[in-house]
């Protein structure tokens, strides 16, 4: 096996090397091979981490690396200032200054740099970090492979004079390294550095197409996440002032944070919520969809937003049992509900996906706020399942875009006839987002079963859940509207598309069917590393059982809920897969649809005789309820309520300090 320092180097530095190589080498095929090799190396390496288990790591030349990190920190912030000035975007400039000035004050004015240098260990790779690195390395790498061909087609369609694919792949591959560093970091200045690095890469990727809209949205993502960076620095300053060791371990070592520490914890959760695009900060993630689709796939599934939910989960023990925990649950649950409702009114496929991501991140954060072993289990399982399903969904959206050159749901009508393979994959992806037996529903089910401690959160889950059914099913319904004919030709797509797509489909079924093994082999340990008390979930026979104490029989280890995993997959196979393969129909059995006897022709047309016997094509349209559920109608409410929730969240943290004094 590889020495541990090499594994760390592969996880964090190999993406840097690969990124530089793809930037220098401008040949399509060589570049593709480098991306694929880096992807394989990262995937193998992440599995090595799993086999190695929990460990800590401090680099040998600590001083040199501290210096590198510090210098790069200031370079990134100086770049933000440059962006702010050159774009004349004052928000970017202001929030760059609010980072660089307090950071300099902390490190040099207060003498915090010595404390930061003394943190030992620099990196802690516990089981939660291992789950994250598996998600980042496997799903993220597949997306990078997909991007090789996607960007080629993207530029071909744009008719660019000079290819910018190298630049794109540079940032994309670098992202994986930054994320690995982020989830491993224990030293807060390393955490901050990787946090800012992901913000920077996100900015570069959203701005990639250099249209006015792209640059504007990239700047919005930058200033919003800079607010988060500012909050993180303030949290560090408070921690330093209170003589707390400047590391995640230091914050978490005392179990539930003392009242004085609740404020920095709240600030760090706030930082994380911005990155996870929780309301009212959802607009940066919605704006990010102007970027080429692999960017969205990466941001939504395995990187960026997952950094946000990771940090909240990581901090969960520090706010367990406090009112802050309740508020975090409510912020998440409210986001889950509001984003699900808003998704119904969206007419663009990628926007529906974006709202669904925001909603599911809200659910994960709500689980962290509920803060029971069952809820934390649900949160970690949701991170895994969401990464796989959402990665697949965005790659599908990208592929569909390159088949029909549109992102609008209305243009996807009847895609099942035009492109049956991608429609099938998309349908599997959609079903896996909200229906049994798939993992996302398992997570939602566990979240609901754990939510009884915060009833309001449970009620918001219920409403979000109902809205989720509507927006997924009506989108899927649009893809299926076909004329009565048989034998549509399967479309041919590049291997760079189909291999990641099918691997992710395989992943959905793999983690879904094998959820018991995923739980015992991976998630159980991660839950124990986050919140060390109690075990809520047991693998029993073919399913999972939730244990608890009964109100009726008051015996310990009493079953609260039961999820028969394999029987449900068998049902799914009988209900959906077998009919999909075996339901056959003879050409003679097909009939045109009923149009009151006014059809104009046979099964191959959808025309009918309208007034004055004019042949008219049938036009069908989806329901979007823009008037009731549109952004214009709902946003005043969602913004107000979410801001109020955030204010109360800080108020309870401050009140705790007041109470302590």
């Amino acid at each position: 096996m590889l020495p541990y320092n090499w594994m760390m180097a592969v996880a964090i530095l190999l993406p840097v090397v690969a990124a530089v190589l793809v930037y220098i080498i401008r040949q399509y095929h060589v570049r593709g091979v480098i991306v694929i090799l880096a992807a394989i190396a990262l995937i193998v390496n992440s599995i090595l981490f799993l086999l190695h288990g929990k460990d800590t790591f401090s680099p040998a030349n600590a001083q040199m690396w501290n210096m590198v990190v510090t210098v790069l920190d200031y370079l990134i912030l100086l770049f933000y200032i440059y962006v702010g000035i050159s774009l004349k975007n004052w928000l970017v400039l202001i929030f760059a200054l609010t980072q660089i000035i307090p950071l300099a004050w902390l490190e040099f004015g207060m003498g915090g740099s010595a404390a930061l240098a003394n943190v030992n260990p620099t990196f802690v790779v516990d089981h939660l970090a291992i789950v994250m690195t598996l998600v980042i390395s496997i799903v993220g790498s597949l997306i990078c492979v997909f991007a090789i061909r996607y960007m080629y087609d993207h530029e071909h369609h744009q008719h660019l004079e000079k290819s910018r694919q190298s630049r794109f792949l540079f940032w994309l591959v670098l992202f994986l390294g930054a994320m690995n560093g982020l989830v491993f970091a224990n030293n807060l200045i390393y955490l901050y550095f990787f946090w800012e690095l992901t913000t920077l890469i996100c900015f570069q990727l959203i701005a990639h197409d250099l249209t006015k809209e792209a640059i504007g949205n990239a700047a919005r993502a930058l200033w919003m996440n800079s607010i988060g960076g500012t909050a993180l620095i303030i949290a560090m300053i408070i921690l330093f002032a209170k003589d707390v060791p400047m590391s995640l371990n230091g914050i978490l070592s005392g179990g539930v944070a003392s009242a004085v520490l609740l404020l920095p914890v709240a600030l760090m959760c706030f930082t994380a919520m911005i990155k996870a695009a929780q309301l009212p900060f959802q607009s940066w993630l919605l704006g990010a969809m102007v970027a080429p689709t692999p960017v969205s796939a990466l941001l939504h599934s395995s990187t960026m937003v997952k950094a946000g939910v990771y940090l909240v989960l990581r901090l969960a023990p520090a706010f367990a049992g406090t009112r802050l925990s309740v508020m975090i649950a409510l912020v998440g649950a409210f986001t889950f509900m509001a984003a699900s409702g808003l998704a119904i009114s969206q007419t663009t496929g990628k926007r529906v996906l974006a709202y669904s991501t925001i909603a599911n991140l809200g659910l994960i954060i709500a689980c962290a706020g509920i803060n029971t072993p069952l809820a934390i289990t649900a949160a970690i399982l949701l991170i895994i399942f969401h990464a796989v399903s959402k990665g697949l969904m965005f790659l599908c959206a990208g592929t569909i875009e390159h088949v029909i050159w549109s992102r609008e749901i209305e243009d996807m009508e009847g895609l099942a006839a035009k492109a049956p393979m991608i429609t099938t994959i998309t349908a599997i992806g959609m079903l896996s987002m909200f229906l049994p037996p798939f993992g996302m529903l398992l997570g939602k089910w566990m979240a609901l079963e754990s939510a009884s401690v915060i009833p309001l959160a449970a009620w918001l889950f219920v409403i979000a859940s109902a809205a989720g059914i509507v927006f997924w099913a009506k989108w899927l319904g649009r893809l299926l509207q076909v004329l009565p004919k048989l034998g549509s030709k399967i479309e041919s797509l590049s291997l760079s598309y189909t291999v990641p797509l099918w691997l992710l489909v395989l992943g959905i079924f793999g983690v879904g069917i094998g959820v018991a093994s995923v739980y015992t082999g991976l998630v159980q340990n991660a839950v124990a590393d986050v919140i060390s008390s109690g075990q809520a979930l047991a693998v029993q026979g073919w399913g999972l059982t939730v244990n608890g104490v009964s109100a009726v029989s008051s015996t310990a280890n009493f079953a609260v809920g039961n999820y028969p995993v394999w029987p449900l997959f068998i049902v799914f196979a009988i209900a959906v897969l077998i009919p999909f393969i075996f339901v056959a129909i003879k050409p003679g059995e097909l009939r045109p649809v009923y149009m009151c006897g006014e059809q104009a022709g046979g099964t191959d047309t959808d025309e009918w005789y309208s007034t004055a016997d004019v042949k008219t094509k049938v036009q069908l349209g989806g329901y979007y309820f823009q008037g009731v559920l549109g952004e214009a109608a709902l946003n005043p409410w969602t913004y107000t309520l979410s801001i109020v929730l955030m204010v109360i969240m800080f108020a309870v943290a401050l009140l705790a300090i007041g109470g302590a004094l």
Partner: protein
Amino acid sequence: MNAWIIAIVTVIVAPFIGGFLAGIDRRITARLQGRFGPPILQPFYDFFKLLGKSKIAASRLQLMWIYAYLVLMITALLFLVLRLDILLMMFILGFAGVCFALGGFSSRSPYSHLGANRELMQMLAYEPVLLFLALGVYAQNGSFLISQIYASPTPLISRLWPIFIALLVILTIKLRKSPFDLSTSHHAHQELVKGIMTEYSGPYYALIELTEWYEIVLVLGIVSLFVANPLWVGIIIALAAYVLELFVDNITARMTVGWMVRFVWSVGVTLCILNLIWFWVFAAFKGVS
């Protein structure tokens, strides 16, 4: 082994009960409308006649989805009789509804498209109530397992009667009765034709009838959970609820989709939440004392 026998018996017997209830429905409805009505066994005659008709369809996909609809409905019913997790049962019932809606979307038919969209709106209306019901069961029993409902000496209705009323409201939607027979109707309506079922005929339509019979048994089974001990009281309540729905069907006119969603959300969801708040406050007081 016992579970297997229960499962097999349920799958065989449930359609007979459902079909029989559908026959009673037609008879009572006819009497309410001043007609004599068909024989009680008419739904079965219809069913076998449909099976003998020639197979025709408007697309292959729609057939696939109605098979899924049938299988998932049976699965949800099995969750009930095998006394498994009620929350998960609601999600499976939701999946069945989604499959039915997708079947309606799977052809370029304006009527079935309209019906499918309305079916989704119906789901938006009733799904929260079903999930709240599961939360209510947990609030009372501390468990989501249906077996615990049967084990508990206190019937659900004693503390969950507001949720029970909400359930009666959505029972109208699930049984496709007026004023909520929006996605498809048992009576002919010109603007809807047969709604989401317009494009099914012959044996495939028989399959949908069969699924509806399972669904009747399932939703009445959920009603009967409210007095699970002794079960015969619960069954009588469920049958009474069924007859009540028939009366409601015949004395009301169909409303619009928007009205339905607003009504169910304002009345049904509010009742559910008030019920759960009561539990919450109750628990808080118990914790204090």
